[in-house]
């Protein structure tokens, strides 16, 4: 260290400079702003989402599908099955049949509207089951660790290794009546693995936070910490994945029904209509277009919503 460093005369432009006091005002260190409304993480995420057009577009798409699935009759006077007349088979679109009729003479517009219910029902039910099962297993594995984690993680791996569609085909072929609930249960019993893994990862990263240690030091029980602190802080990735998964479960249901092992043929569904429409694909390909378009519209809505939610909840994007 040069001894004379402080004795040197300052060089040009490096003399002692002091800002005018009024130029930089030094306020109270660390003052709290009390004027703005308080914002929680969720409220901030909402504020972020509400500024994005994609959020409103996808929310509108989902709303349309959900309303149609609840009251399809409000949008058409025709019925999907009982109004069918074989005599009016394969009619082109007209004022009476907006989308035309299928091979059985049923109104395609009505069938497309009524088909929404099965898809939305299976999607919502499957996602609910998957979230409950996957979150429980993932959270327990991640939070308790050790042997519990090893066993639960291996079980998850075993289910993960089974091809999803293959397992669904095998099990559904022995189910006597394939209702929406039955299909949802089968889909959920093999579809929970990804969410279990996501939850486990999220819980692992949250559980080492100091607020968790602080709660332990208060004497809070492990289960209570998991429920009150760890899970709420792990919720963001679970919500994001569930939104996207809802779309993919709807696709899975349609695929299985198309193959003839999903919903019973008595249930009006887009997968079933695609399957029956296939027989006339050479002559009337437009019959398949409408259920396929409805399916794509629904799934797109949920996947886009998942994207928006992910952007809003991304911890890196969040204001510190």
């Amino acid at each position, binding site marked *: *260290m*040069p001894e004379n*460093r*402080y004795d*040197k005369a*300052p*060089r*040009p*432009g*490096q*003399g*002692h*400079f*002091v*800002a005018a*006091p009024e*130029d*930089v005002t*030094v306020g109270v*260190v*660390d003052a*709290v*702003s*009390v004027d703005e409304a*308080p*914002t*929680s*993480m*969720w409220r*901030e995420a909402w504020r*972020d989402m509400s*500024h994005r057009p994609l959020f409103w577009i996808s929310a509108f798409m989902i709303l349309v599908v959900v309303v149609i699935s609840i009251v399809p009759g409000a949008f058409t006077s025709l019925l999907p099955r009982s109004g069918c007349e074989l005599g009016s088979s394969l009619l082109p679109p007209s004022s009476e049949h907006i989308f035309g009729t299928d091979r059985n003479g049923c109104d395609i517009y009505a069938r497309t509207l009524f088909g929404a219910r099965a898809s939305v029902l299976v999607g919502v039910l499957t996602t609910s089951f998957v979230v409950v099962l996957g979150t429980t297993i993932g959270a327990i594995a991640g939070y308790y660790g050790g042997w519990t984690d090893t066993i639960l993680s291996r079980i998850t791996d075993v289910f993960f290794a089974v091809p999803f569609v293959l397992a669904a085909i095998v099990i559904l072929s022995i189910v006597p009546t394939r209702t929406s609930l039955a299909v949802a249960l089968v889909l959920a019993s093999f579809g929970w693995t990804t969410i279990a893994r996501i939850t486990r990862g999220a819980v692992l990263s949250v559980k080492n*936070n*100091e*607020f968790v*240690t*602080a*709660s*332990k*030091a*208060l*004497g*809070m029980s492990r289960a209570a910490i998991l429920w009150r*602190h760890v899970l*709420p*802080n792990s919720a963001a990735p679970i919500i994001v994945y569930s939104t996207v998964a809802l779309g993919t479960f709807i696709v899975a249901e349609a695929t299985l029904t198309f193959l003839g092992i999903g919903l019973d043929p008595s249930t009006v569904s887009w997968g079933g209509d695609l399957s029956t429409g296939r027989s006339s694909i050479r002559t009337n390909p437009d019959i398949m277009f409408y259920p396929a378009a409805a399916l794509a519209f629904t799934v797109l809505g949920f996947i886009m919503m998942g994207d928006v939610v992910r952007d809003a909840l991304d911890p890196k994007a*969040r*204001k*510190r």
Partner: protein
Amino acid sequence: MTTTISLTDGSTEDAPVPAEKREDGSPLLEIRDLQISFTTATGTVDAVRGVDLSVYPGQSVAIVGESGSGKSTTAHAIIDLLPGTGKVTGGSITFGGRELVGLNRKETEDLRGSEIGLVPQDPMSNLNPVWRIGTQIDEALVANGFQGSKAERTARVAELLGEAGLPDATRRARQYPHEFSGGIRQRALIAIGLASRPKLLIADEPTSALDVTVQKKILDHLEVLTAELGTAVLFITHDLGLAAERAEHLIVMYKGKIVESGPAAQILQDPQHEYTKRLVASAPSLASRRIQSAHERGTEAADLLAGHADEVEATVSDVVVAKDLTKVFHIRGSRPGAHSDFTAVDGIDFALPKGHTLALVGESGSGKSTAANMVLGLLEPTSGTVLFDGKDVAKMSRKEQFALRRRVQPVFQNPYGSLDPTYSVFRSIEEPLALHRVGDRKSREARVRDLLDMVSLPQATMRRFPNELSGGQRQRIAIARALALEPEVLVLDEAVSALDVLVQAQILTLLNDLQAELGLSYLFITHDLAVVRQIADLVAVMKDGSIVEHATTDEVFDNPQQQYTQDLLAAIPGASLEIGG
């Protein structure tokens, strides 16, 4: 310490001119009226507002400021490394007479590394973990146009590493970053920064992630190295003591503006601006005394120590006593069943007298936090006992232990991790009360308001969420939460280490006032001896799991007995500097 450095260099065009020859020349780097803005969702934020500074060849200049002052932003603008939406909106940066603002990407890339080097802040994340150290230095050489064969480059890499102070450089070059400690990694980063003999080295908080003794070694070495190479250094730091010790010219920044600049000695001895005055007054390495009020309590610390020097029996006045406390961790090996034992805490004894502060000081890995966790009951001791008010904690029933939780509470280091982000401030502070069934909803709310008053936060804060508060405010909330159950002992685990100097001084004063008011006892865990002097009555210095020195604060600072303690004290940046009143 001094290493001989060969200046014969493969790339002759970059060979440095000795600093003396350019002594009276024009500035190497000149920044005039620099303006930098960031575009955010809520509008434009002016991060730097009209900064002027100059660096002469071979000179060392330091920019000092707290987080958010714009010091790093200014430095990054020089080499066009502004993050995200940052943009230079006005002013000029000239380097060796050449304007840098508005250079295209190719020109900037040519400049980086070969003309201006950078030593980044965090040695843990700034080396690529999948590449060997040697490969990463080699890459820096190639990127800056080093002409030479593979063998020549390998030789040069070893030379650079040796220069940066790594023994056995040839072998080191073949190792991966994870095989190195933080200090060695920082040396490797310095080697990369100086690989092409730049004229200016920007050191952005180069040692703030390292232990003080390591920090001192590295800064000493960097100083020798840059002096021999004639490299100018621009330090970016939050530590006024470090800046004054290492640089001849200081620039103090606050809220994007320069509040004061000038010769280091002059700024320290005669600060003019209100902010600089506060900074000099609060810098822990410069402030030399215990925050007063401990002595007002009328007890002489020396008497206290005499009471438990023979740690055979706990005296009544000791609220926490640790006897022969040991913690052994089993580290899982590569094969099942294979494991090794690691003794984190090795038979330590200490006593915390009621109403006083005991500081456990040590560098990373010394076992101080493990000891704290055993006192908190978060870890079970392998052997030895923790006595609380003379009762063995391990022998208590579950119910007694739950009751004990109320009497010992922690405050942790990280103000961003110690509060649940999904809980409002009210819920965070109320939680301990609800858990221990204290009062009804209304009395609990009154208590939360009292606690907020106690930590000097407006009561309206209770409706807010942690993400809206600054680090210091969060730490106040964490203290309020810890105080909710009226504990007798607070375990402060690096509780002020992550805070800016002024905020840190405020929190220390707050802790001190609370101690005087409520008769609290503090177990203060820290790596920072400078802070210890401000808050502690007694000090226990830990090294490798053992206590090497245990005495009153004044004794430790005035008359350290152990070599290790002396090294620690000598490593405090700015310890040797004199400041004016």
